[in-house]
């Protein structure tokens, strides 16, 4: 089984890099999360209209950012996987999907919780919430497609095609949902961004964004490592059976 060894040996460099970076990323994630949450929950001023509930924003908004960025990152790595056939690119799209889906779900749940005091109901067909919901569907479709293939490399390529088609579609979906929303919603409904953001709110928001990014990287590294180990295990098992 000396064949194609370079294909699976390739991730070694990634693994070495990942192991070196991992403690720093995890440390940064914890530090930033604590700082961001403290700033958001205790330091930032409460909103004159929404009171304390505005603090949900510090959990909600960065989660929505991450939901969208992770999908973009998946599209980029899917393209890289298709073009350069780099195995880590395939794995990283797979590893990122559930994390992105979790962020999206977090954004949806916090959005609903925020909606209750703001709008008097948990779910409003607000353009952003609706877009996030559709994004969650895209994540679910992607993960379901991965799960349906037995052959790993086939699954990677099929999922890559899906994520790219989805990525091309996302701006169209976003545009149409925004447009649909302005058609159907009375303009008086407050949107989540509200008035211009003051610095005392913006800083914790950005800190939380950075914290989520680090958290993502940390979990991402664990997942990619696990995927690579799993692949190696499979190969070892099969070559053992062949002998």
């Amino acid at each position: 089984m000396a064949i194609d060894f370079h294909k699976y040996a390739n991730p070694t460099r990634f693994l070495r890099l990942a192991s070196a970076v991992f403690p720093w990323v995890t440390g940064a994630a914890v530090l930033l999360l604590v700082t961001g949450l403290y700033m958001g929950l205790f330091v930032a001023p409460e909103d004159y209209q929404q009171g304390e509930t505005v603090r949900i924003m510090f959990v909600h908004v960065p989660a929505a950012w991450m939901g969208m960025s992770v999908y973009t990152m998946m599209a980029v790595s899917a393209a890289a996987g298709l073009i350069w056939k780099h195995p880590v690119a395939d794995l990283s799209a797979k590893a990122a999907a559930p994390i992105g889906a979790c962020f999206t779900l977090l954004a949806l749940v916090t959005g609903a919780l925020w909606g209750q005091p703001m709008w008097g109901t948990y779910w409003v067909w607000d353009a952003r919430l609706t877009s996030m919901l559709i994004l969650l569907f895209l994540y679910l479709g992607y993960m379901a497609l991965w799960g349906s293939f037995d052959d790993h490399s086939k699954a990677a390529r099929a999922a890559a095609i899906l994520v790219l088609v989805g990525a091309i579609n996302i701006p169209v979906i976003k545009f149409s949902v925004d447009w649909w929303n302005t058609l159907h919603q009375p303009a008086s409904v407050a949107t989540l961004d509200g008035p211009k953001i003051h610095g005392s709110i913006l800083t914790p928001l950005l800190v939380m964004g950075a914290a989520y990014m680090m958290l993502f990287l940390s979990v991402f590294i664990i997942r990619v490592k696990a995927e690579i180990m799993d692949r190696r295990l499979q190969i070892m098992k099969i070559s053992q059976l062949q002998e």
Partner: protein
Amino acid sequence: MSLTATDLTCIRGDRLVFDKAALSLSAGQALWVKGKNGAGKTSLLRVVAGLLKPARGSVCWNGIDIREDPDAYQGHCHYIGHQDALKPVLTARENLTFWSTYAGVSRVAEALEIFELSRIADMPAGILSAGQKKRTNLARLVASPAPLWILDEPISSLDTHYIRLFADCLAAHLKDGGMALFATHQDLQVDGVGYLDLNGGGTRE
């Protein structure tokens, strides 16, 4: 016209099917692919047909890699697989007509004649016997000529009469300067056929 394949390695899932297979064919030559069950005969034929992507190595048609320029190769080979590619609700003739117009040349009547299908040509393919289906599928080879035949078990479910008939057909194809790559369990007894052994025995022209 020539077909060459070098250093072909095929991996299915995580299993190595075959390693470093090589073959070359030029006008009038045929290769009989031998090997035990699971030796990768079907995989090899599918790689050469351009259906499977080899993990390593390349298949070249007239010196050009078929993966790099598929257009130059498309339409130059006939592939007969395990399945018959027949639509049960269409008649044998309709099935054959479709595939041959799809390939560009249509000599359906002649093909039906050669494979002794004229009598059943207007019956729906769904009610034909396995052997009759196989012959209808084989008739594609004649209905729209192509220089390279890739045949996976072409004579399964044929009786001795039709095996002979098919072997003659293959011999005529080779005489006309055609090429063939086939996997069968029994010897077709056609002159000038080399073999390729996937059990590690190498090739002999």
